[in-house]
């Protein structure tokens, strides 16, 4: 197992390095001078030049890249130009919104998708199956920002069950969870639909396998065969999807954060891009890429735990 982990770690670091180069290159190419933007229309050329020097924008690309990566390795992401606060604290505050939101959405999606997928697979072709499949088709097709808009209209404005957005901070965990509920539902809908479909088709594949027939021949009922043998084997592809979804939820919630004006990582990136706060953009995107690669790595490890065949090869 260790050798597998070491091998993967080596390739991970390689991907991270390549990712950092790509990100730095793309971000540096964005037109629009941050200093000019910050000083506005009436600023004079000399003040802009002074600010550029202060921000270190005039140094050669390579040394700026080295400074950025060097800092990142020790956990110091540098200081944001517009917020004038260390990027690390900026991210720390924002991650306390994005991470719980992603976890909340993922739990909702999994809690809905697993029973739906299993029920649909166990009654293949039945009324329940068609209904669930119909619902998932709708779930996948609804644009989640449109769904969010409708949620806000109904639950926040008309029924006033939830606040229309904003995030009160974790001082009062209950209020914080309440604030994250509508966004989590909006994010969870398409993910639950996808996960339910994957669970169903993976389970159906497993139910078609020979070892199910052997289990039936041993005297297990159809339900027992499904729960004791098919389900565990079906979990493997489902795990991949959950891993992918988690990394998507972390970074893909930009629009939902916009609709609910949540101070999350997505919105931070969006504002930082329009304010040309390049250090923030680079660091946060790098952090997201790092998390995604780590999540994939963890999913691979859990593979080995779930499937002994991989354990042997690892």
């Amino acid at each position, binding site marked *: 197992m260790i050798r597998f982990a070491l091998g993967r770690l080596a390739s991970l670091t390689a991907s991270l390095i390549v*990712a950092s180069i790509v990100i730095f290159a793309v971000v540096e190419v964005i037109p629009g001078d941050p200093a000019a933007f910050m000083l506005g229309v009436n600023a004079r050329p000399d003040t802009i030049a002074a600010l550029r020097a202060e921000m270190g924008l005039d140094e050669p690309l390579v040394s700026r890249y080295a400074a950025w990566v060097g800092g990142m390795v020790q956990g110091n992401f540098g200081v944001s130009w517009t917020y004038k606060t260390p990027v690390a604290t900026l991210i720390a505050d924002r991650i306390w919104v994005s991470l719980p939101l992603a976890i909340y959405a993922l739990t909702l999606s999994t809690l809905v998708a697993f029973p739906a997928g299993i029920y649909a697979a166990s009654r293949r072709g039945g009324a329940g199956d068609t209904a669930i499949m119909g619902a998932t088709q709708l779930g996948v097709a609804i644009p989640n920002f449109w769904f969010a808009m409708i949620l806000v209209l109904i639950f926040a404005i008309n029924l006033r069950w939830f606040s229309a957005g904003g995030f009160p901070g974790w001082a009062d965990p209950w209020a914080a969870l309440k604030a994250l509920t509508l966004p989590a539902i909006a994010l969870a809908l398409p993910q639950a639909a996808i996960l339910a479909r994957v669970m169903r088709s993976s389970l159906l594949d497993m139910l078609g396998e020979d070892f199910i027939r052997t289990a039936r021949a041993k005297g297990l009922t159809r339900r027992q065969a499904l729960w004791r043998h098919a389900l565990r084997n079906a979990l493997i592809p489902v795990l991949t999807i959950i891993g992918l979804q988690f990394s998507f939820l972390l970074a893909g919630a930009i629009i939902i954060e916009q609709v609910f004006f949540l101070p999350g990582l997505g919105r931070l990136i969006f504002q930082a891009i329009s304010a040309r706060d390049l250090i923030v953009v680079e660091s946060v*995107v790098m952090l997201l890429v790092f998390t995604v690669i780590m999540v994939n790595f963890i999913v691979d490890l859990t593979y080995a735990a779930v499937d002994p065949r991989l354990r042997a090869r690892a």
Partner: protein
Amino acid sequence: MSRNLIIGAGLTAFFTGLAALSFLWTPYNIEVLDIPNRLLTPGGAHVLGTDHFGRDILSMVMMGARTSIAVALVAVGIGMGLGVPLGLWAAARRGSLLDDLIMRGNDLVFAFPSLVIAILITAVFGPSAINAIIAIGIFNIPVFARLTRGAALPLWERDFILAARVSGKGAARISVEHILPNIANLMIVQGTIQFSLGILAEAALSYIGLGAQPPTASWGRMLADAQTLVSIAPHVALIPGFAILLTVLGLNLLGDGLRDWLDPRLRVVRT
């Protein structure tokens, strides 16, 4: 012809028809603004009502269909055009450094948060339909590359491929003559699914203002503009939403229907 296929094909044909028709005729010219009678409710002169500039919503939906379908189609084209050969190449050189490189590259592109990179691209090159196409297209490439490689790998072990190798055919020729035709069905099915995802992505991008720019219409931007009117004139926000929903639903059903129709591996479930 399963139920999914019929409904899916019907919906897709309807919206592509709308898009095609918009080249020739639309009930009103969307470039002429008519501020005095804006936000009319559906019915009467304007079947689906008018938007905040007084433009006819039906015409806007038709023109929007053209943008969404064009952007998604070209993006899937890019995805397939580059992804499939890459996948075939990786499978042909399975286990080699090249195969590893392509797969590592795929994982890397998957690792990037797609929406963030789309925003970065449009920030660098300016928001426009073309940049939306590139942004969405890039993230389709690894999907097709991975799918093609996954489908092609087992085929390489099949006897008819060994027979072709015995006949002296090279890896490239075999990939085109033998492998590609046998995974074509998979490509069509995945193509429709990615097409529907492309429409959603285009709508998301134009919703945050990074897709097609005025005067070209786009469903996403119609949604964004109508957002603040949702409490006074809900139809302006609901109609584009439904247009996106039905097109994506149509494409997904078409994808499912095609999957069953093209390779009916009837999954006989043991008792």
